[in-house]
């Protein structure tokens, strides 16, 4: 037996709708059972059936938050999947391909090909639909992992459909496994993984963590319009909210989605909407309404390739400016960027709390990779969760005569008491027109200045949990690398290699995008010889915020990628090395 490895990368490719997703799901669920850390990446097209698609997962005995540069095993349902992906294979990597299409290894690629009659074996059992089982069984067998664990995952996937179906699928797994083992002469020694810690992690996509976090935060309504890559949040809540007395309403458009959420928040239910770039653009006027009327509002924006329809199924981080500056006029607004699967959960609680404590719109920005990449998640602790509703007044004292409740009372911190419709002592008016303390329209110049100042000062003292996530072991590093969203793990992987080359680096993930935590960031900028800001957009939007608010422009450089794909560790490593 050779040396045990601590991680490997596996990819499955085929035509969309061909079982790529389900093969990945079953394979990775079984790995999760054994306690491995997983990190997935989905490559897909904006169409329902057909078109090349692939899912890649990285399997490790240690926590990982990035896809790998290379690939150990490629499972291919068609030649296109080999042609498009074989270049990622490391030297001596393995291709398991359906023998049906007479697969070949492209010229110049050093890989071992195992043609397995995937379709044929599945058809022998009655249906080609079981290709996914044959393929995942073959993959599992090559790794030499225990088949019982795999079969248990199959049982859970198909249990609902009855024992006959379960049995057939288990047989398909076995046939795939047997065939490939015969071909390879047993499990491949170089793919023998160290044993995992056996502690089962949670395994989910960011959008599911966001949905779960919302329920934990007390969100009971969601109004939304379907869009990639946000829809899974809605789909999750559609399944779960009825159990908690709530509901999801699919609206006619994103304008209705956001204004309905404003109405529901005004009336006292924590309500969210979620969308991506095009939907966010449609919501802009309403975001101003929430700001002006000081109505809590939580919007999740799962960024994808823009502008316009852009690259709807690809990675990008190019809505930052739209989120920070969007809506006409000037309002206080919070933009938070989760940077891990755990953040996706906990930040939703933070977002709902902030939106009520400060009575402002809160935008939670993810990116496609964070929203859709399936990954291991540390245990989530419900006891950590506190629901804070700010200055929400219950049982307001009765009003005298024509008096109204001072919903927009001038206060020290700018935040006024809030009361919900239905309260006898709470009558007041709400309007997007400039208004006085009871909400009546007012054009008085004095009132205008006071009201603007009152609203805008609300966030003066704001600092969220981990506004900056700081990994700064070096006092005066060669490099300070700054990123946001899903890029953190990839940056850390690149830093390991930089370290081996003698280049010291610190890493800061910016999680509070707006208001920008400039004072907290400045000392780290000043301590570094050079600052590299890494982001998935073409105009260096995050770097722009840093330069504007925290200065140090002369030492800030950008590494940008806007071809639709997430960064790879190697790209970051090479670029940083060059720039250092």
């Amino acid at each position: 037996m050779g040396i045990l490895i601590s991680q490997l990368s596996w990819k499955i490719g085929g035509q969309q709708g061909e079982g790529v997703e389900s093969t990945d799901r079953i394979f990775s669920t079984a790995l999760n059972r054994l306690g491995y850390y997983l990190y997935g990446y989905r490559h897909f097209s904006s169409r329902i059936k057909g078109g090349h698609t692939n899912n890649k997962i990285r399997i490790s005995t240690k926590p990982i938050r990035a896809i790998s540069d290379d690939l150990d095993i490629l499972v291919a349902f068609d030649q296109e999947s080999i042609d498009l992906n074989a270049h990622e294979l490391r030297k001596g990597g393995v291709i398991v391909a359906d023998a049906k299409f007479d697969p070949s290894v492209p010229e110049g690629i050093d890989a071992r090909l195992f043609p397995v009659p995937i379709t044929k074996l599945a058809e022998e059992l009655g249906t080609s639909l079981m290709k996914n089982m044959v393929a995942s069984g073959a993959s599992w067998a090559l790794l030499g992992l225990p088949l019982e664990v795999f079969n248990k995952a199959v049982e859970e996937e198909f249990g609902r459909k009855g024992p006959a179906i379960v049995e057939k699928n288990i047989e398909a797994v076995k046939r795939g496994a047997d065939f490939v083992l015969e071909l390879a002469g047993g499990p491949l020694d170089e793919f023998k993984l160290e044993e995992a810690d056996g502690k089962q992690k949670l395994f989910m996509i960011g959008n599911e963590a966001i949905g779960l976090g919302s329920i934990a935060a007390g969100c009971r309504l969601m109004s939304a319009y379907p869009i990639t890559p946000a829809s899974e949040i809605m789909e999750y809540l559609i399944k779960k909210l009825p159990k908690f007395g709530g509901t999801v309403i699919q609206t006619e458009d994103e304008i209705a989605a956001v204004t309905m959420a404003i109405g529901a928040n005004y009336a006292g239910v924590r309500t969210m909407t979620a969308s991506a770039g095009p939907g966010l653009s449609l919501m802009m006027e309403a975001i101003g309404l929430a700001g002006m009327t000081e109505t809590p509002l939580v919007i999740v924006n799962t960024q994808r390739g823009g502008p316009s329809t852009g690259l709807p199924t690809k990675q990008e981080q190019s809505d930052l400016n739209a989120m920070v500056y969007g809506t006409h006029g000037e309002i206080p607004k919070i933009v938070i960027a989760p940077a891990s699967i755990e953040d996706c959960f906990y930040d939703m609680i933070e977002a709902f709390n902030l939106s009520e404590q400060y009575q402002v719109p809160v935008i939670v920005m993810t990116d496609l990779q964070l929203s859709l990449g399936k990954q291991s998640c540390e245990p989530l602790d419900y006891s950590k969760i506190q629901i804070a509703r700010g200055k929400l007044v219950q049982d307001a004292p009765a009003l005298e005569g024509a008096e109204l409740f001072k919903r927009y009372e001038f206060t020290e911190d700018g935040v006024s008491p809030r009361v919900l419709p239905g309260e006898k002592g709470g009558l007041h008016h709400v309007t997007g027109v400039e208004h006085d303390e009871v909400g009546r329209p007012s054009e008085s110049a004095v009132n205008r200045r006071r009201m603007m100042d009152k609203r805008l000062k609300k966030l003066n003292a704001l600092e969220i949990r981990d506004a900056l996530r700081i990994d700064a072991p070096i006092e005066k590093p060669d490099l300070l690398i700054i990123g946001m969203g899903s890029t953190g793990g990839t940056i850390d992987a690149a830093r390991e290699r930089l370290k081996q080359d003698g280049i010291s680096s610190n890493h800061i993930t910016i999680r509070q995008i707006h208001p920008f935590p400039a004072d907290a960031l400045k000392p780290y900028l000043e301590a570094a010889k050079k600052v590299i800001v890494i982001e998935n957009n073409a105009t260096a939007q995050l770097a722009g915020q840093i330069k504007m608010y925290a200065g140090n422009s002369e030492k800030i450089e950008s590494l940008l990628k806007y071809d639709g794909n997430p960064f790879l560790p190697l790209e970051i490593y090479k670029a940083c090395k060059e720039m250092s």
Partner: protein
Amino acid sequence: MATFKEFRNNVKPNWCPGCGDFSIQAAIQRAAANVGLEPEQLAVISGIGCSGRISGYINAYGFHGIHGRALPIAQGVKLANRELTVIASGGDGDGFAIGMGHTVHAIRRNLNITYIVMDNQIYGLTKGQTSPRSAEGFKTKSTPEGSIETTLSPLEIAMSAGATFVAQSFSSDLKGLTSLIEQGIKHEGFSLINVFSPCVTFNKINTYDWFKENIVSLDQFPDYDPSDRVAAMNKIMETNGMLTGLIYQNTTRKSYEDMIVGFKPEALAKQDLALTQEQFDQLVSEFK
């Protein structure tokens, strides 16, 4: 119990003297008192335009939103607190131009709210441009040669969208309008009440006198059955949309709130936000 006076406040509307909207305001106040509401039990959600100001002129909870979006805001309020009586209101531009998409879908959705449109066939607040309700040939600032677009028929659209309550009235008929609003509030579902509300400043064609001459009251047809959908559509077409009264009501279809699985009769806003540890563990378990 509150009288209509309790629904008044001390704000002087910024409407022109003689505007039809004054009577609609009075009718809402009377209807609210007549159905036994207290001011805090009523939420008036309005859009933008002259008529959109109405939420500030009624002593109740009022939300003056953005142009064309009164209905989605109102639906959000109702979903959050179904114990409130929710009235959405605005002009014909608000509901049938910029907000038409929401109007159709709010009708389809059938939440238990009442939508009162103050229809003056023109844009008043922006000082006299054409509206989707303007007649063909109608000359305005934006149509100096006369409108060359077809006049939109909100009643036909409402019927075809599956409305469960369609009524039309005239602001001069305070009694009839008050009664229709009461019926709309009591109706278990979405009620559309389109009200002709003459603009005395910018619309010199569709005047009070013009309406008096052209309106066809359903009172003239003692045998008319408002539960007959086909008859309703016919009557709307026969009268070129100038019909007033309760045109259609479907009392068998349940409201949206009553059809949501697991939705409780108490206000969602009053329910506890916390989960039990057991509930949370169950949610988490499916990700293992």
